[in-house]
């Protein structure tokens, strides 16, 4: 009885200390941002129902998307290599093959109409700074502009993989991969680093990458960080709420709102977990086995103590 009381005292002081140094201190030191569930409430919802066939004509034709964007699934190859594209635009314009699956439709709609607004980058691209966002806004192709935008989104969705076909890697590459490297997954801003047979090829790749990164640095103000260990250094909640709107944490940052859907955000998180916490499943499994073993160990230890102490009392 007395021992239980002593244990209670020790446990209480330990838990108070833990509470103060961990949850309480974190709460005091870090801003807490609630997730909006990737609803993008500030953006208007799509009102028109799109038609993919008409959308295709617009994307390929009057919308002029393919002047800058590749769409590999539709046979449209990029007009420039990443480094040259970055030298022109600051960052490589994304291939639109997966865009319909990765990005929220209402985000895409605003993006086409007014990119800087959708990306929450109006503090960077405005009349005062004299800078315009590299992607020209869409002024309509002569008809009902909202209908045209809905058609284009319908087309992008029709060529995009289904949600269940979208892999974590595809989601990450489309949403984050043109600015962020993840060297634990061999990912660079210009694509996955292949194995090279010849040193010349490797050096050419490296040169290309450095050129790309230089353009990106000039465009963003600094080279965006490598995200290999972000799942451990920032954690899931921070990453999600940051991606929802980077201005939540870093007012004035050059990082755009990415506009991913909630499902794609989960995929991005999974990709980052594979990079920075690759053994989490093994950890959970081994952990359970060890805990079960420990229960048997406790039983054996208690029985041994009782056996030895029987004569001592």
């Amino acid at each position, binding site marked *: 009885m007395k021992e239980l009381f002593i244990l209670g005292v020790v446990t209480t002081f330990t838990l108070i200390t833990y509470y103060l140094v961990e949850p309480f201190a974190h709460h*005091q030191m870090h801003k807490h941002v609630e997730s909006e569930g990737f609803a993008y409430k500030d953006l208007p919802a799509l009102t028109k129902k799109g038609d993919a066939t008409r959308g295709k004509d617009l994307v390929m034709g009057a919308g002029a998307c393919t002047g800058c964007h590749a769409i590999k699934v539709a046979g449209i190859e990029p007009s420039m290599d990443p480094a040259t594209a970055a030298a022109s635009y600051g960052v490589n314009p994304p291939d639109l093959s997966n865009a319909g699956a990765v990005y929220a439709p209402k985000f895409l709609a605003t993006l086409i109409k007014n990119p800087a607004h959708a990306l929450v980058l109006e503090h960077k691209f405005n009349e005062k700074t004299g800078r315009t966002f590299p992607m020209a806004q869409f002024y309509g192709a002569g008809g009902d502009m909202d209908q045209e935008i809905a058609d284009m989104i319908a087309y992008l969705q029709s060529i995009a993989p289904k949600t269940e076909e979208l892999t974590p890697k595809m989601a990450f590459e489309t949403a984050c991969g043109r600015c962020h490297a993840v060297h634990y997954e061999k990912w660079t801003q210009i694509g996955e680093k292949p194995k090279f047979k010849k040193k010349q090829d490797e050096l050419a790749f490296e040169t290309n990458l450095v050129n790309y990164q230089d353009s990106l640095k000039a465009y963003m103000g600094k080279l965006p960080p490598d995200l290999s260990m972000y799942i451990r250094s920032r954690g899931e909640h921070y990453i999600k709420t940051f991606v929802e709107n980077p201005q939540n944490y870093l007012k004035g940052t050059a990082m755009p709102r990415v506009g991913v859907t909630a499902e794609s955000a989960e995929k991005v998180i999974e990709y980052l977990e594979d990079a920075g916490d690759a053994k989490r499943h093994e950890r959970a499994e081994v952990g359970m086995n060890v805990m079960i073993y420990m229960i048997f160990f406790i039983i054996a230890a208690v029985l041994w103590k009782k056996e030895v102490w029987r004569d001592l009392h």
Partner: protein
Amino acid sequence: MAHFEKATSVHDWLNQRLAIDTVRRVMATEYWIPKNINFLWAMGMVLAVTFGLLLVSGIFLLMYYQPNVATAFDSVNYTIMREVEFGWLWRHVHGVAASVVFLIIYIHMFTGIYYGSYKKGREMIWISGMLLFVAFSAEAFSGYMLPWGQMSYWAGMVITNLFAGGSLHADGLVEWIRGDYVPAQAFLTRFFMLHVLLIPLAILGLIGLHFAALRIPHVNNQDGEEIDFDAEAKKYLAGDKAGSKVIRFANDFMAKDMMVVAFYLFFFFYLVFFHYDFAMDPVNFDPADGLKTPAHIYPEWYFLWSYEILRPFPTDPGLIAFAFAQVIFFLLPFLDRSPNAVPANRRGLFKIWFWAMLVDMIVLTAMGKLPPQGIFSTIGLYAALTFIGLWVVLPFITKLERKL
């Protein structure tokens, strides 16, 4: 030369050469421990087990860790955490044990203070224990440098800066310790050496001293009772085990120790697998960057109380207060002037002193982590002054104590 008989068994062969029967008797079966103890008396064994875990996991980590500023971070977070089979397990065991070992050390220390186990012949147990605390602190700090993350780098910067001695401006000493103007390759390599060789050697030696210091005065008991160990041992050996006030170290005391160890390991492995974050600061998962100071720099939780004694004061008084906090616990057996070696609850004012000290150190720990602003800064200042004040009054209040 001694006379050797032809051995009748392996046991006999060894016994003639190593006296294993005598060793066993002296170290285990007739090493007498008081019976009147509670689970807090098992903390020594819990610490030994935790140190064993640190040693074994450390050996495995050492096979893959690379003490190079360019590769250290990735050798931990990529090679060990992803490539090496069960590397993640060794790393989490090592990281969590490094934190938990301090929790147990603090419990062990406060147990000693509460039951007066540093008095009346037990001074060397206390002093060797405090030397172990210092050695473990150095071991923890040097180990914290090795992953070469942001907190490694900046904690290294801040702590080595303390050696400039404020207004003394001993910048040469700081450079000598770092081997460079800032923490860099020379710094990492030497802290690696300290962590894997010199300090572990010191710890092993000090553990030997700590155990040896225990042998003559014997372990204290729950009531501070002075036991005639020879008489009680005779009673035990004569068969009156229940009536004797002492028990054998092995298996009597060991059996109870192992029971506590079993419960402890359950808690420990729960932390390792399901709640390891508290021991591995997120900031340290960003690679070291000398051009990017983290928003908040704070040490691991077990150093926070002494960090907070440094922080609320101006530079020079702060350093003096910090130095005071580092050495004052060593002097406890001499500052406590009371003749009574009994639990604190029977010692009048010392009882209040004990709980005040415990609460004050928890307050310091909490404030040491929080940003030094507003109310936290004020609380921290008063808690630091209280800490110093408590030590100043200790000799006086214990002198007043009447002999029981």
